[in-house]
Each structure stands twice: as structure tokens, then as C-alpha cells.
């Protein structure tokens, strides 16, 4: 079942190329249909999820037996929300791209390929499989940026590729080290978690933690490895940015929670302070640099650094075991996973809205706009909702995530958490300022901007509706995440 879910989009992409001559309309609707079917399958997976400990829908086949690497797939409470997020975001991008007219077949095929790769990564339970999907995601996104991006896209794409590829090489070094340290040698994540190679291993464990941490930190991205993100976002097409921010960045944070915390628990606990510091620095640095931006998309890119910083802070605080109640630690980790989902939904919506803005005005420069709410009230309303969701207003998923992170982390690391509070204040300032500059006040552009089209509205609104639903009735999501976060904490406490 999981294999079908993972490889269906790839199959659809192959079909697109197998058929010799297809009209663009067919391609677009084929893409939307496949994404919709995929989303429905994932919902069915969620509905049928048995709960409890361990992985559901497990698949374990021989793949590369000489290095004990198997085709091992499985979902649990940590990966299922991310899988659902991925399927939902790709569907939204498919609907949004109904207006795409540049080389539509390649565009659709590339996104379907990216969907397979992203889903595969989140359900992979083998390090080699994880690595393969990790690298393929970089390849796919490179082509999206280079082929359909804006003016400076080639440079940005190369920078994105090389920087994150170096990160994945660091990951490979770490994975191989884990393989060699395990006895019997294996790349299987479940088996490695059980074995805990390098337990109490001093400098070797620290180095492996560093390698893995570097790789995931570049992907997340955290400060100071974040400078590939702003140019990549600014030059990427709207749908590409949405997937980059909504799905690809989660691969980094997912790696922290799935691989680093369970497999290297005491190294993690020993260096948790470093993680907390990196998190807080990312929060404040990301928010402040975002405040200074004049380019709307670049500003949102830096707020991604800020939001990911909260996740890093939370998982770091969960590792500071001293004097912290289990309840607080669980809140922190649950908040971190909730933030992954929430950030995916809200920031993807923001990037799609930025795409609408670019389409109307030809630029992301905020000072060239003004008073857009007069001619585009629905656009203004949706952007206002997205902005408030992103700054963490209660009633939206971002608040659920950030409140849990703050409340869970304060006991363990009060100073860092209090500093992180300033992040939500600065984020509020920057979003309100941007909203006021673009939508309120007198009109500054010569022609009135057209309001949202149906495709744009239908692709963006459900993401925000989902953010509201999670914000007001979070239990359906938290019932899935909480047992998994408890399990991760138990694994980390060994």
C-alpha cells in the first residue's frame, strides 16, 4: 500500500512522457487528478492508521543485502502528518498551476517526480533509501528553479544545489559511520535505533552528531547555513517555492527527530545546549533580517528561517533533561512536529500568494504596491489571514505549535525561550508592515490589480482553512503526534 502511495506520482509522470503528443489542458488536469487521487489515498492511510506504538503499513524487502540496506517503508505518528502535508501541498500546487503555460508537460512531470521523492523520504526507514530520496529531491528542485524561475534563476539554482548537496554528503559520511559502528552492520533505521551504536562513545559520537547535524542544519536551514534559501526562493516559480518551503525544508527537521534523536540519544543530550543556541539564534536572526527586507518573497524566506528556529529550539530543549518534567518535554516535541505541519501549510499559502502578487505587478518589491485591497479585496483578505496565521495568532495552527514549544521549553531553558518570545513580536511587526505597504493606504500603482482567479482561490484557501481547523480543533492532529513524540522522548532518554 505504501509503495503504491509513494510511486503512483512517478508512474503518472512516466505516462505523461510515454504518450507522444498531449495537449497542455490534458497534462494539467491529469496532474490535478493524480494529485487528488494521491491525497485521497493518504487520507485513507490516515483513517486506517491503527495507532499505538511502532510503524504501520510496513514494507520490508531485500534491496542491497551486501550492505544490509533493505527497501523498508513504514509510517508512524511522526511521518503520517508530514505525508499528508506533502500530498495536500502538491495538490494545491497542481491546482494553482492550472494557469502554467511554459513547457507544461515537463513541469507537471517534474512535480510528480518530486512528490514521489518527498513521500518516499518521509516513509523511508532505511538510511540509504532516505539518502537516495534526499538527493533526488535536491535534483528535482534544481530543475524546477533553473527551468521555470525568474531572471537570475540559474545562479540561484546552482547555489541551492551545491550547498544542499554538500549537506547531503555530510549526511552520507554520518550514515556510513553509523553503519560501521553498528554490529551487525546495517543501514536500517529501526535496527539502528534499537542498537544505539556509539552509545557513550565520546568523540566519535560527537563527530557523527556533527556530520549529521551539519547535513540537516543546511537543509532546515539554520543560521549560519541559510544563505542558499533567499535566492532560491526569490528566483523560483511560485509553486516551486511553495514546495521548497512546505516540504523540502521539513526533510531537515524530520531528520533531527527521526534519525538523530533516537539513534544518538546520549550524544544529543550532551550537545543539546548547542542545539538550543542555534535555534534561538535562528529565531531572532531570521526575524530581524526579514524585518529589513524590501522584497516580499525574500522576507517570507527569512521568516521560514525564523519558524524553523522554533523547531530546533524545541528539540534542543527536549534534550536538556535536567529538572524538566516529562509533560513539558512532550509538549515541546509535539509542538515541534505541529510547527512542521503548520509552517508547511501557511508558508506554502504565503508563497502562492506571492506568486499572485508577481503575476499582477511583475515584481516582489513591496514599495511598488499600495492600496491593492481596493481592487482585490479577496486577495487582500486571504493575505491578511495568511499573515496572521504566520505570525502565530491564536485560532491558527501556528499558535498551537508555538504555544506548545514555548510552554514546553521555558522550564528547561528559560533565558533562550524568553529571547525566542521576541521572535513572535518582530514577526508581527514585519507582516503587518508588509501588509500595510502592499494592500492598505492610497493606491500607488497605475492600474488596478485583478482579484484572485478561481484556480488561485481554490488552491490557497483550503490550506488556510486547514490551518484554522488545526488551530481551533487540534485534537485530530495531536492524537496522532503525541504518542509518537512520547516514543521519541523515551528513545532519547535511554
Amino acid at each position, binding site marked *: 500500500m505504501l509503495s503504491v502511495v509513494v510511486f503512483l506520482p512517478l508512474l503518472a509522470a512516466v505516462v505523461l512522457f510515454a504518450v507522444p503528443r498531449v495537449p497542455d489542458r490534458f497534462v494539467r488536469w491529469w496532474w490535478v487528478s493524480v494529485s487528488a487521487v494521491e491525497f485521497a489515498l493518504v487520507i485513507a492511510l490516515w483513517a486506517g492508521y491503527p495507532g499505538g506504538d511502532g510503524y504501520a503499513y510496513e514494507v520490508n524487502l531485500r534491496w542491497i543485502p551486501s550492505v544490509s540496506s533493505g527497501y523498508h517503508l513504514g509510517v508512524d505518528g511522526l511521518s503520517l502528518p508530514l505525508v499528508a502535508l506533502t500530498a495536500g501541498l502538491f495538490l494545491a500546487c497542481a491546482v494553482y498551476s492550472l494557469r502554467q503555460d511554459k513547457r507544461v508537460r515537463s513541469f507537471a512531470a517534474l512535480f510528480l517526480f518530486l512528490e514521489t521523492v518527498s513521500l518516499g523520504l518521509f516513509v523511508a526507514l532505511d538510511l540509504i533509501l532516505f539518502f537516495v530520496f534526499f538527493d533526488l529531491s535536491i535534483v528535482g528542485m534544481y530543475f524546477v528553479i533553473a527551468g521555470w524561475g525568474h531572471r537570475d534563476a540559474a545562479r540561484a539554482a546552482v547555489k541551492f544545489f551545491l550547498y544542499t548537496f554538500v549537506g547531503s554528503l555530510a549526511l552520507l559520511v554520518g550514515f556510513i559511520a553509523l553503519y560501521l559502528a553498528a554490529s551487525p552492520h546495517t543501514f536500517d533505521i529501526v535496527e539502528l535505533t534499537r542498537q544505539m551504536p556509539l552509545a557513550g562513545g565520546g568523540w566519535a559520537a560527537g563527530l557523527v552528531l556533527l556530520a549529521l547535524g551539519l547535513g540537516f542544519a543546511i537543509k532546515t536551514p539554520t543560521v549560519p547555513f541559510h544563505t542558499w534559501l533567499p535566492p532560491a526562493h526569490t528566483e523560483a516559480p511560485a509553486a516551486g517555492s511553495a514546495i521548497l518551503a512546505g516540504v523540502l525544508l521539513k526533510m531537515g527537521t524530520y531528520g533531527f527527530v527521526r534519525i538523530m534523536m533516537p539513534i544518538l540519544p546520549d550524544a544529543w543530550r550532551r550537545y543539546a545546549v548547542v542545539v538550543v543556541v542555534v535555534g534561538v539564534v535562528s529565531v531572532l536572526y531570521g526575524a530581524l533580517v526579514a524585518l529589513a527586507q524590501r522584497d516580499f518573497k525574500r522576507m517570507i524566506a527569512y521568516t521560514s528561517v525564523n519558524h524553523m528556529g522554533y523547531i530546533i529550539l524545541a528539540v534542543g530543549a527536549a534534550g536538556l533533561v535536567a529538572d524538566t518534567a516529562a509533560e513539558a518535554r512532550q509538549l515541546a516535541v509535539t509542538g515541534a512536529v505541529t510547527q512542521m505541519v503548520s509552517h508547511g501549510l501557511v508558508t506554502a499559502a504565503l508563497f502562492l500568494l506571492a506568486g499572485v502578487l508577481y503575476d499582477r505587478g511583475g515584481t516582489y518589491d513591496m514599495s511598488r504596491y499600495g492600496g491593492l485591497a481596493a481592487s482585490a479585496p479577496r486577495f487582500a483578505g486571504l493575505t491578511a489571514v495568511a499573515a496572521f496565521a504566520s505570525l502565530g495568532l491564536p485560532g491558527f495552527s501556528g499558535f498551537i505549535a508555538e504555544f506548545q514549544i514555548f510552554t514546553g521549553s521555558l522550564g528547561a531553558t528559560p533565558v533562550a525561550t524568553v529571547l525566542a518570545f521576541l521572535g513572535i513580536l518582530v514577526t508581527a*511587526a514585519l507582516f503587518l508592515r508588509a501588509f500595510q505597504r502592499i494592500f492598505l493606504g492610497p493606491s500607488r500603482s497605475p492600474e488596478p490589480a485583478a482579484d484572485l482567479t478561481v484556480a488561485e482561490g481554490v488552491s490557497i484557501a483550503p490550506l488556510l482553512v486547514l490551518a484554522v481547523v488545526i488551530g481551533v480543533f487540534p485534537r485530530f492532529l495531536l492524537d496522532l503526534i503525541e504518542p509518537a513524540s512520547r516514543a521519541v522522548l523515551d528513545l532519547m532518554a535511554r
Partner: protein
Amino acid sequence: MTLWLLIALPFLAGTALLVSGHRADRLAPWAGIATAAVTAVLAIVAAVSAPEVSMPFLAGLRIGLGVDGLSAVMVVTVAVVLVAVLVFAAGEFGAAESRARFHGLMLVFAGAMLVTVTARDLIVLLMAWEVVGACSYALIGFWWREERRAGSGVVAFLTTRAGDLGLYLAAGAALAGGVGGLTLAGLPAAAGGWRDAVAAGLVLAALGKSAQLPFSFWLSRAMDGPSPVSALLHSATMVAAGAYLLLRVEPLLAVTGWAATATAWIGVLTALVLGAIAVAQRDLKQVLAASTCSQIGFMVLAAGTGGVAAGTGQLVAHAATKSLLFLGAGAWLVALDTKDLARLKGAARRFPVLGSVFTVGALTLAGIPPLSIWVTKDAVLASALAGSPALYVVGLAAALLSGAYVGRVLAVLWLPAEPDAVRPLNAWLLGPLPVLALAATVLGIVGLPGPARWFATLLGAAEVPETSWLELVVSGALAIAGALAAASWTRAEKLAAPGLFAGWLGLERLTRLVVVTPTVRLADGLARFDDRVVDGGVRAAAATAGALARLTDLRVEWSIEGAVRAVARAARSLGRQAPRPQTGQLHHYYAQAAVGLGVLVLLLIVL
């Protein structure tokens, strides 16, 4: 069930209106007033039946709502003022305005406010608190086409959000301090140092939301919103939420000694300083705004000195009075198109009904006997006296200033009128005002000994310190003296506006200078640092790799190439040498064969 309905109804109705947009503009006033009326009925039912509900939310943390004595009073206050304000708004907003957006936002605000005053734990309180702030932003910037008004909304939101960080601190500290379920009632039981953090956070949040010093400047900017917004949010409900929170957690403040003292002093100093600011204002709405901060200062003082019943009484009386006054100012704004006191000369004579009702409200605000605020303010002062005589004296000074600013305003309004163009006032605008005036007048009954004891029992508050007749007479006399003095000085046009107080002590400029500008400069500096140094490091790494590649290509590759070429050259020259023995001369071949055989024999012998 009643409680869920009470909260869900305004939320759902408001959201429906917001989503419908301009299509619902004609329906909006009716829908708004109807919803508000039903909400008021539900509020009264809830106040009487005292329901409690809870819902699972986060791990181990349920959210709970409940109507106890204090919440009952607040819920009825919010709902009644909402009805009055929406009726007024139906009269103020014409067909050209976005009435659906307005009524939608007001209803969503009301829902959030009702949640705030019925919250039993910190999570749901924080959630509703922030939503209230967001609605305030949207309502202050309602006429968003004007840059300044939109900016005022941002100032208000960011200032209150800065205070709200205190609630996040309180929530985290409460969890760390072992407060089960983060309930408000359980806060005094938090462990040592965490309890201080909780108290600090709650006090910060309350001061920010209630526009106490040093946050008062945001309320001045909030006057850029429509008058109904000022009447509902910025007099009766939202700004009172801070005072409500302090009254609710008064046991925590009392247990954490320093918090109660700090709260009481900040409250009374706000009352004094903002009273002085009110005297110096030239704009009617600004006078009312400063007066609001000042009156809420009294409520904060009550919370700090343990006078929960007194503070609540003041809150209710002030809600009725101030909303009446703001609606009155709004009515004059519609009729005469001005809020400037200089241009409002004689406005009360030209509109006698409005003028009389407004005067009743103003006299109540001043604390003139026998109206409600005279009684409630005195109860507050009594509890302050029980706390410390210094607080009492400063409080009396603030009461004197209350009389002064009211006297000044009334003097201007009742001056001989100058004939000018006026717009008639319709029934919608005038309708709610007498009702509010009646409430403002009559609520003073709460101060009489019998009802006071009942009120205190309702609120679960400690025994109210008996207000002596001497104190009542003193405060009443001070208020009257202040009013008369200010009125006569105004008529004689001797009251100049001292610059510092007229500009709200320059608090906004100071905040901009000390907080905003450095942050923006830091942000710009970090952005440049990011581009030049952090990204520069990446570019340098890439450039180094490129340079290394070129070096390898030039030197290393070249030398290896050179080695390979040398081998090839040697082979070629050997090849050139090879045909040299082929001379064609037989004796040479014999000699070569002999040498070759000799070498072979030698080899055979050696090996």
C-alpha cells in the same frame, strides 16, 4: 450548552459576515443587532445559571470556560454595551461603508471578549486575548484607505502584543511551576521563583492591554478608529480586560507581595498622570481616551490593594459611562464633523437631548455625587487607604483631576453656541444613549451597604472595607471643586495646554526612539551582515574551490602532462635512435652479433 452557544453565536455570525464581504452589506446591521440581542439574552441566562464547560485541547491541558460571579458581571456588561454600540453603528454607517466587515469584526471581537472573561485557564485566556488584539487592529484601521489610521492599528497591535509576551511567559512558568492544567485559580499555588515569573508576566500583559503607563500611547492612536469601536473596545471591554485579569488573579498578586504593590502604584500613578494629560487635550476623543486610562488606573489600583468588589464595580460603572460618552462624541462627529474641542463650542446647546445625556455621563465620570462612579471610585479609594495612605492621597489627587477634565469639557460644550451647518441626528444614533445614561446613574446603588455586601458575596471577594461617610464627602467635594475650577478657568480661557501633557508625555515618540528605531537599525545591520559576511563566506568558499580548480589545471595537470609528454618524447627519441644500428655494413652486423652473444653468455653465467 448555554456557554458554548453564548460564545459560538457571535463568532459564527461574525465570521459569516466577514466571509460574505460586500454582498452582506445591506443585511449586516440587522444581523449584527439581532445577534447582539440574542447574545445579551444568553449572557443574562448564563450569568444566572453559572455554567461550566471544558474541552480537551493539548496533552494533559484541557481548556475550561466558566461563569462565576466576576465573569457573570463581565459577560452581561460586554453583551449589553455591544447591543448599544451596534445600534449606534447602524445609524452612523451609511450605504457606502463596509458594514458587513464592520459588524463581522465587532461580533468576532465580542465572541473573543466573552471567551476572555469566562476563561478558566491560561491557554484559552491567551488565545482569546490575542484574538481581541487582532480584532482591535482591524477595527482601528477600519478606514484603511487613510495611511495614518492603518498605521494606528499597527501601533496598537504591536504594543499590546509586546505586553502579551507576558502571558506566554506566565503560561510557561506556570507549567514549570507545577500548576495543574494551567488554571487561573491554581496560579497562587505555583512553586517559588516560577510564581514570581507568572505574576510578572500577567502584570505585564494586563498593563499593556489596559494602556497603563508606560503603554498608554497606543490608546491615543486607537482614537483613529470609528466611534463605535472606541465605545466598545477602547472604553468598556478590551482595555478593561487588563483590569479584569488583575482582578481575577488578585489572590496571586496578594501572595506575591511585590506584584500587588507594583500594580497598585502603577495604577494610581496612571490615574494621576493620565488625568493630567486629559486636562491638556484639545480633542474630545483624546480627552476621553486619557480619561479611560485614568479610570482603569483606579481599577488596577483596586486589584493591587485587594479590592476586587470595588474594582469590579468601577469597571461596570465606567463601562456604561464611557461608552455613553464615546457614542455621544461620535454623534457630534456625525452632526458637526469635528472632534476638536474648540469647534465643539456650544454643541450641547444646539443638540439639547444629546447634550443633556452627555452631561449626565460626564458628571458621572467626574465622580460627582450621587452618581455611580462617585460610589465605586470611593470604594476603590477605601481599599487603597487600607493598603497605604500614600496611595489614598494620590488617588484623591487623581479624583480631583477627573473633575477638572470633565469640567473643562462641559464648560466648552455649554458655552453660547455659534450657528453653523449641522447634520440631523437620527434615532439610531440617539436611541442607546439614554439607556446607557440610566445605567451609569443607577449603578451607584452597588455602593450602598446592603447591595455592596451582596455584590461582594457574588464575586467571592473578601469583606469590603466599610466606606466612611467622611471619605465619600471628601471625594465628592474634590470632584465638584475640580470641575468648577476647571470650568471657570476654561470660560475665562485661562487654561493653556502645557506641551508635554498635551502630547501624552511624548511616550510614542520615546518608544519609537528607544525601541523601534534601534530594532530597525539592528535589522538593517544584520541584513547587510548576512549578505556580506555570511553569504560572503559561502561565496568565498565557492571562489576558493574555483581557484583551486584552476591551480590544479595549470600546475598539477601541467606537470603530470609534462611527465607524460617527457615519457612520450623519450620513447620517440628512442625510436629515432633504433634504426641507427641498421648501417647496411656486414662488419658492423658481425660486431653487433658478437657483442650481443657476449652479453647473453655473461647473463647465463651470472644467473
